[in-house]
């Protein structure tokens, strides 16, 4: 049984940061003699003790292979695994639990759709629409599919602030479009895309819509029915949960019509030497023994986030973002990358005279962890005319004091380099 703390919020509904930080022991360490400042949350978030305990408790008490064993441990393990499915269903407001498929992560979810739905439905000349700010995970599977089917990948353009050009939607999304694959929140820019509008545009031309929600789930309320998304993929590890687990949501009718992804145990109904029939949803897409323990622990992560509440998280994270931006924009020679009006707590930036790798090395010496490079978005970097950026991404356990340490570290780096 997982206990969720009820004192993560103060009486006035704001975050009790000190109390929250107690749940993240990893944050209380020194790096290179300085207090750790972890601003690489868009790459992966830290895990609260509740998630680690759920993982440990599963292995200490309940470990068994799921679904087939007729013994108590197998029943407990199965119940815990399937309880996470129910938890995810509620978390994203799926209509049915069978629409929630466990994967290894966002990347696998997108590859699953490209390999199964894509190969079954695309032919030469059909068009796949992605945005200019896709992560390679939502670009490469479609390129691979296009190479196999002779379909064409089209790009939704964006402006210099990192916002998709809504006026271009109707010229790019046309009767030739078979699938729209778009990122909900950009990992490199923080932009929140108008995906509800995009999904409606896709549906209007008879296309399906897949949303890469990797960067969205920890910040935004996700309602797949309200969005009317056909597919929605995300990873547990960016949601304060374990690595190696992701979710692919798909509408039942579409999933039913899709061929299976991988063959093996669990996904079959009957197998003879000559042939086989496939299991029903969601098991049809969960071949082999899944990552049971991490799926079980994902439930604790969802409950943790839920116990603070996304609205309170967003308010606080925006305070952090505004504070950081107000300090960053005063630094001489800085160019902020990703200045969309609608953003999550991610800020990229570049200096014309300081290489991002150099900056990251000095920041690490000062205890500050940021991400530098192309963020697996090489086409986007090309569009922005940079080889890479420095990116600070904030989570609900970060503080303004940490931002001060981060800014001081940048000034120290500048002194060294200029």
């Amino acid at each position, binding site marked *: 049984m997982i206990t969720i703390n009820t004192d993560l919020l103060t009486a006035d509904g704001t975050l009790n940061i000190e109390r929250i930080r107690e749940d993240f022991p990893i944050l209380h360490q020194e790096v*290179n003699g300085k207090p750790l400042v972890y601003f690489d949350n868009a790459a992966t978030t830290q895990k609260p003790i509740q998630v680690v305990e759920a993982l440990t408790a599963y292995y200490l008490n309940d470990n068994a292979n799921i679904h087939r064993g007729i013994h108590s441990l197998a029943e407990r393990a199965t119940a815990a695994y399937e309880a996470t499915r129910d938890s995810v269903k509620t978390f994203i407001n799926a209509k049915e639990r069978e629409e929630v498929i466990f994967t290894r992560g966002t990347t696998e979810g997108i590859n699953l759709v490209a390999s199964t739905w894509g190969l079954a439905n695309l032919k030469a000349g059909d068009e796949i629409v992605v945005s200019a700010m896709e992560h390679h995970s939502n670009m490469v599977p479609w390129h691979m599919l296009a190479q196999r089917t002779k379909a064409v990948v089209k790009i939704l353009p964006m402006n210099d602030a990192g916002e998709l050009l809504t006026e271009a939607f109707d010229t790019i999304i046309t009767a030739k479009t078979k699938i729209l694959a778009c990122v909900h929140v950009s990992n490199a820019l923080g932009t929140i895309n108008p995906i509800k509008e995009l999904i409606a545009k896709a549906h209007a031309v008879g296309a399906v819509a897949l949303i890469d929600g990797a960067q969205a789930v920890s910040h935004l309320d996700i309602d797949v029915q309200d969005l009317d998304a056909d597919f929605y993929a995300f990873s547990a590890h960016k949601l304060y949960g374990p690595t190696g687990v992701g979710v692919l949501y798909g509408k039942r009718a579409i999933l039913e019509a899709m061929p299976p992804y991988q063959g093996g145990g669990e996904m079959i109904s009957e197998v003879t030497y000559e042939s086989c029939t496939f299991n029903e949803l969601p098991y049809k897409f969960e071949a082999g023994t899944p990552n049971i323990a991490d799926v079980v622990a994902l439930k604790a992560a969802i409950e943790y986030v839920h116990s603070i509440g996304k609205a309170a998280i967003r308010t606080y994270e925006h305070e952090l973002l505004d504070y950081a931006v107000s300090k960053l924009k005063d630094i001489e020679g800085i160019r902020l990358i990703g200045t969309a009006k609608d953003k999550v707590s991610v800020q990229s930036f570049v200096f014309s005279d300081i290489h*991002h*790798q*150099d900056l990251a090395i000095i920041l690490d010496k000062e205890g500050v962890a940021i991400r530098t*490079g192309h963020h697996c978005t090489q086409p986007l970097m090309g569009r922005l005319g940079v080889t890479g950026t420095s990116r600070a991404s904030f989570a609900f356990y970060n503080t303004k004091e940490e931002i001060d340490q981060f800014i001081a570290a940048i000034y120290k780096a500048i002194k*060294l*380099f200029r």
Partner: protein
Amino acid sequence: MATINEIQDQIVEDFGLFDEWDEKYAYIIDLGKKLPGIDAKYKVEENIIKGCQSLVWMTSNYKDGKVYFEGESDAIIVKGLVALLLKVLSGQPAEDIAKSDMYFINKIGMEQHLSMTRSNGLASMVKQMKMHAIAYQSKTV
């Protein structure tokens, strides 16, 4: 000319003067700034040691049994580290380069740059320089 190990020992001694990490880095940054870049015509794909974050170009010449290196990077700390490697290895006999042990990197506290994730760490630069030396050796045999 001093041997590879004599030069390494000298660098270790020099770095011993620095009390703080930022003094070490200021020195490396200075080395990077002072290292002459390589000619644009050598900045081609085949001379790149490719990393996820920054680029390193490395070329070499062989004369009288010795290997002369030139290198550059678009990141200044990496360029400073390249300068140190050139200081130690450039102009040395191919045979000595091939069997050299770059122990100074650990001794000056730069070991974190040996295996920087998916990046052109020092280890791949040293490996590349040794490959050059071995290639020249095999040509002359």
